[in-house]
């Protein structure tokens, strides 16, 4: 390739790229619509749901705005779920006064209610257990594996979705400290 041809091509590519980058905010603005879209993914508003506890108490997710919420989807046959839940209880005991809420959504359509309830009570968990009888919440949160933990910030936006055993006690404490200190500032 001739020297001049190379310089010509290189300068053209660079100028085109610069123009593209500078025009992006005009041509493809990030905030164009869809900012109120809900989706079960980090950065989106958490899809709303209304479920009942075994004691027939109704809980609506959207009423829990202004406080951090952990939606924990589980089943009694899932050993990883059962290994994770005592850790959540310990965190709940420490952070409930500061507004932290845990919703343990049982995938009842894949579970036996009596077994699940018996396990939940035997462990003495104090956060509410919710019954997803028709799998609508599991569908809403596009559940692929159990457990799935969805941490929602006070603004109703999802902070983190952890599939599997990752929602450890220590990890949750770190995330909550970040959320609560940002909120209390």
């Amino acid at each position: 390739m001739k020297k001049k041809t190379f310089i010509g091509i290189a300068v053209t590519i660079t100028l085109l790229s610069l123009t593209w980058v500078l025009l992006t905010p005009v041509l493809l603005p990030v905030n164009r619509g869809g900012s109120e879209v809900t989706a079960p993914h980090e950065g989106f508003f958490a899809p709303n749901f209304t479920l009942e506890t075994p004691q027939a108490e109704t809980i609506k997710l959207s009423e829990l705005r202004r406080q951090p919420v952990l939606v924990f989807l589980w089943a009694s046959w899932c050993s990883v779920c059962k290994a994770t839940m005592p850790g959540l209880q310990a965190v709940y005991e420490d952070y409930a006064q500061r507004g932290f809420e845990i919703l343990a959504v049982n995938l009842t359509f894949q579970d036996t209610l009596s077994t699940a309830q018996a396990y939940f009570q035997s462990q003495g968990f104090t956060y509410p257990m919710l019954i997803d009888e028709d799998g609508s919440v599991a569908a809403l949160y596009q559940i692929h594996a159990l457990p799935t933990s969805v941490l929602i910030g006070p603004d109703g936006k999802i902070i983190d979705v952890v599939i599997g055993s990752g929602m450890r006690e220590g990890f949750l404490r770190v995330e909550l400290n970040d959320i609560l200190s940002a909120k209390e500032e």
Partner: protein
Amino acid sequence: MFPVIDIGPFAIQAAGLILILSLWIGIWLMGMFSNALRTNTEKIESSLLVGLIAGIISARLGFLLQNPTIFLENPLTLFSLTPSMLNVSFGLLVGFLTMLIYAQKWHLPFLPTMDACTPIIILLFAGFHLAQFANGDGYGLPTDLPWGISLWNQIRHPTQIYALILALTLFIGLLVLTKGLKETHSLKSGILFLWVMTGLALTTIFTRSFVKDKTLIAGIDPLQVIGIFILVSSLFIIYHKIYKENYPISIMISLGSNKNPIENLSNAVSKLEDAYRIRRQSSLYKTQNVINNSDSDVFCNQVIEIETNQLYPHLRENLKSIECEFGREKENKQQIPIDLDILTYGQDVFIHNGKHIPHPNLIKYHYITEPLAEIAPDFRHPGTGKTIGEISSEITNDPQVFEKINEVKNGNKR
């Protein structure tokens, strides 16, 4: 989306699996390319491995140092296999530094090594975007275009797929350009690497505009700015290497003859002296013919270092014509009046028309390493970074049948 792959009782995080697979394929392709280039495959693999391990460990350590309470409460979290407790940027930093330190320790030449690693770089880039696709990260802006995908409750630009397709196109381009990783196309080390960086920078600059999942600084995506920076610097270095580096280059040439060897070698050297500046010249070494070990075929060999800014193809043509002048016939492998081989061309590593530079014989025969060690005891192989001593000691099947004869004006000629 398929964030989890269920295999019997195991649910494997698809993103992690994709990253590991792309790294594995990348390392395999790097091995092929590195073997073709004759760079130090074994040591490159080792530094990658050490860097990878150091990176993973320090990603976890970095997270725990940031949040020491977790570790104090339960020291076993250090070893937990969950991917959530990682400080990725710290891990990357330590991983790359470790790789650099090991590459330095083993004297891996930077640019040829980067050329050999180009398949890994592209594969990891492609794998990263495929992993994002699996996780639903890096999702695009809403669109009405027919190829939009339904993701997170909207029809969106499949941005991860744009990046993946462009990266794979770049890889196919690399395969075509290098004729299946068998040619380097360029006569300079590092050019392939720089072209790949240019391509990946353009891909990033283009596709990031369609991404919604990003943090802007002053309305601009910082990754695009980094892309522009890499683009401009890569193009500038390519320009500089191809059009500006025009200073005299040191070239090692091996001379051999078995027909009036002493006379022919001395004539050949004076022929070369007419055209080039000779920096160093070794003694003559008497050896047996390496093809058929008959006593009658005594070879004489010599290595000289010349200096020129002639490009490799011209230099090679010139040497060929000198060989012809001495009556070298291609068919006659028994009687060789003069044989001139380019051993090294500066510090560059390339494959031109199937010819490897540095010359493959450089690591095969004592009749080359001995005279080379004589004139350049500090010589290092431009591809592998091995010293002349190491190269020589690794030659095992070539019997040392030397007799150093007539100490010609040893060392600096002028």
